[in-house]
C-alpha cells in the first residue's frame, strides 16, 4: 500500500469551481479556462503514488501547480474533485478533529520562506509541533534540543529567527518538522530561497538524515539538479498536469514530451546517469563481436562521472558489476558517447 496517494485530483481556483470542472474534463486548456471563466486551474487530473520511505520530488516551473499539489496532502488546500489517501485512508472524509490529529502526528511541512515564528526563539520554534500537541514543557524542550543538535545549531537555542542566516533558519524549519517525528515530510521548495552553496549543504544534510530516518518525503522544487539529487521518483508538472513520473534516469533518457526535454537538456548527464542505466547486457556485448579484453570493474550504481576519466585515459571497456562482483554488463565508448550526447 502506498503511503500517499492522490487519485484524479482536480483543483480549480475561483468562485464556482464546480461549474468549470466539465470544461476541463473535456480538455480545455488552462489559458482557455482563465479567459472564458476567470477561473484558474491549479491541478488537472493529477494522480501520484508515493511509497513509504521514498523521496518523491515534484518538479515544475512556477505556476505549474506544484505548491498546490503538496498542500493537498495535508489539506491546507481541498481539491475540487478527487481523492487524497494517506495510509490508504481518504483524508478528505476527515472531520476537523481528525484532520488536526493527522497534521499533528502524521506529517509536517517545511516552507520556502521558512515560515518560522518571529516571536519565538529557535527552541520554541522547534518545539512548536509538540506545543500544539500539548506535550509537557520538559518533553518539548528535550526533544527540541535533540533536534537542534541534529541539524547542527547547538548554541543558538535562545536566538530569534531574525538573528540567523537563511541557511540556519531553514535548519530550524527542518528541525521543527522533524521534532514531531512524523512519517511524512512535506517540503515546499524548502531550499529554493538559499544561495547555491548552502543549498548544496542542505541537500547533503537531507540525504544524510534520510538515510537514517527513512521518512516519506514529498519534495517540491523547480530545480532539476536538486530533484535528480534527492528524488527516488520525480513527477513533472506543467500547467497543472502531471506530464511524466519516473526515476531520474528514466526522465533523462526518455523525456515524455518537449516540455520535459527542454528541462532535461542542460543537465549534466554524467552526474546523474548510473552505470547500470547505460550498460549493454553481456549477451549483446558479445553478440557485437567484441572480445573481453582488458576491462575496468565498476559498481552498477556508480555515476558516469566517477569512471569517465578512467575510460578516457585508458581507452578501455568498462565492466559493470554488482555488489558481489558478478558481471552485469559492459559499457563501451559508444554507449558513453550516446548517453552523454544531448539529443
Amino acid at each position, binding site marked *: 500500500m502506498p503511503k500517499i496517494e492522490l487519485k484524479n485530483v482536480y483543483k480549480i481556483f475561483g*468562485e464556482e469551481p464546480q461549474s468549470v470542472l466539465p470544461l476541463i474534463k473535456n480538455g480545455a486548456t488552462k489559458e482557455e479556462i482563465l479567459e472564458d471563466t476567470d477561473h484558474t486551474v491549479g491541478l488537472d487530473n493529477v494522480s501520484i503514488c508515493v511509497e513509504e520511505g521514498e523521496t518523491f520530488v515534484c518538479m515544475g516551473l512556477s505556476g505549474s501547480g506544484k505548491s498546490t499539489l503538496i498542500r493537498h496532502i495535508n489539506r491546507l488546500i481541498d481539491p475540487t474533485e478527487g481523492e487524497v489517501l494517506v495510509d490508504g485512508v481518504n483524508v478528505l472524509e476527515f472531520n476537523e478533529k481528525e484532520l488536526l490529529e493527522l*497534521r499533528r502526528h502524521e506529517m*509536517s*511541512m517545511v516552507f*520556502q*520562506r521558512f515560515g518560522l515564528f518571529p*516571536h519565538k526563539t529557535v527552541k520554541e520554534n522547534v518545539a512548536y*509541533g509538540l506545543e500544539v*500537541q500539548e506535550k509537557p514543557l520538559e518533553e518539548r524542550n528535550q526533544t527540541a534540543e535533540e533536534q537542534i543538535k541534529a541539524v547542527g545549531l547547538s548554541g543558538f537555542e535562545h536566538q530569534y529567527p531574525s538573528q540567523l542566516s537563511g541557511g540556519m533558519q531553514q535548519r530550524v524549519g527542518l528541525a521543527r518538522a522533524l521534532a514531531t517525528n512524523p512519517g511524512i515530510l*512535506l517540503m515546499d521548495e524548502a531550499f529554493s530561497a538559499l544561495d547555491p552553496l548552502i543549498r548544496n549543504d542542505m541537500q547533503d544534510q537531507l540525504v544524510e538524515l534520510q538515510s537514517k530516518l527513512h521518512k516519506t518525503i514529498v519534495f517540491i522544487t523547480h530545480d532539476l539538479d536538486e530533484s535528480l539529487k534527492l528524488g527516488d521518483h520525480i513527477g513533472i508538472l506543467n500547467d497543472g498536469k502531471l506530464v511524466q513520473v519516473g526515476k531520474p534516469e528514466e526522465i533523462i533518457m526518455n523525456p515524455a514530451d518537449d516540455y520535459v526535454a527542454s528541462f532535461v537538456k542542460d543537465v549534466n548527464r554524467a552526474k546523474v546517469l548510473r552505470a547500470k542505466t547505460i550498460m549493454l547486457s553481456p549477451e549483446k556485448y558479445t553478440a557485437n563481436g567484441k572480445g573481453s579484453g582488458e576491462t575496468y570493474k565498476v559498481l552498477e550504481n556508480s555515476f558516469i562521472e566517477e569512471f569517465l576519466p578512467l575510460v578516457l585515459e585508458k581507452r578501455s571497456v568498462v565492466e559493470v558489476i554488482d555488489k558481489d562482483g558478478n558481471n552485469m554488463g559492459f559499457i563501451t565508448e559508444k554507449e558513453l558517447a550516446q548517453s552523454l550526447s544531448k539529443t
Partner: protein
Amino acid sequence: MGSQSLSHSGLMKKNKKYWVPLCLAVFAVLVVVSYRSAKPRYKPENLSDLLSDFSWLGNWPKWLDFPLMQPLNAGFDWLIKEYGMFFDGINNFLLGAYTLMKDFLVGLPWPLVVALVIILTYFASGKKMGTTIMVGFCTFFIGFLSPRYWDKCIMTTCIVLIGMLLCLVVGIPIGITMARKPKFRKSLLPVLDLMQTIPSFCYLIPGILLFGLGAVPAIIAIFVYSVPPLIRLTDLGIRLVDKEVVEAADAFGASKKQKLWGVQIPLALPNIMQGINQCVMMALAMVVIASMIGTRGIGDEVLLGLQQLNVGMATEAGIAIVLLAIIFDRITQAYGDRIQEKTKPKKLKKK
C-alpha cells in the same frame, strides 16, 4: 467549507440582476411617501399641475422632502419608553465604575498619583529613563499649571480610561472576527465609516436623551468615536501576519484557538497597540467636546475660557489637555514599542 462558500457566491450572482429593479422600486416608494406626507399647502392642487406648471423644477419643491426626522424621533421616544430600564442599567453601571475610579484617584494624595504614573511608565516602557522622566514632569505640570486642573484632569482621565476599556472589550474581538470573516468585514466597514464621519455632536444628543447629562454620554460618545480605528487596526494587524507563518501553524495542526492566541495575536500586537494608541488620542479629543453637554473635566475649563473670552484661561486649559495627551501617548507608545522589540528582535548590534 468550500462547497458552502460556493453556493453562497452562486446565490449572490443570481440575486444581482434583481438589485437594480429592487432599488428603483424602493426609490419610487420613498418618493410617493414623501409626497403623501408633505403638508397640503406645499403640494400642487392636482398632480397633473406638475405637467403643466414646471416651476417645481426650479427650486427644490417642498413636497419632495423625505420625512426622516419624525419617524426617528418617534422611534427614539419608543426606545426610551420601552427599553428605558435597559439604558438605566448601562447608565448605572458606567456611572458607578466612573464614580468609584474618580473618587479613588481624587482621594489619593497628589504626590502618590504622580509616583504611580511614573512607576507605570517605567515598567510599561521597559525601564526607559527618558520617557519616564518626561511623563513624570508632564503629570506634575498639570497641577502646576493650576491646582484646579488636577482633579478635573483626573475626572477626564477616568472617563477616557473607562471609554477605552469599553473599546478594548468590544473592539478587539470585533477586529479579530473581521479579519477571519471577509463577509463580516465587508458589511462592517461602512458602519465604521459612518461612525467616524457622523459629526460627534450628532451622537452626543441621543447620548443625553438616553443617559442624561454627565459622564456616561461622554463615555458612550468616546466609544462610538474611537472604537473604529481600534477595530480597523486589529483587523489589519491580524490580516498582515505573514501568510506562510499562519500556514505553518496550520500545517502543524494548530487549532483555531491555538493559532489565534499563539501566533496571530502576538504577531498582530504592534498593530493592535497602535490601534489602542489611536483610540486613546481620539477619546481625549472627544472628551473635550463632551464638556459641552455638561461632562465635567478639563474640557469645561476650555469651554469656560471660550465663553468668557478669557484667552489665558483657555490656553492654560488647552496646555493641560496637551500634557494629558502626551502622558497617554507616551505610555501606550512606549508599551507598543517594547512589544514590537519582543516580536521582531533586531539583528545583533554590531559595534
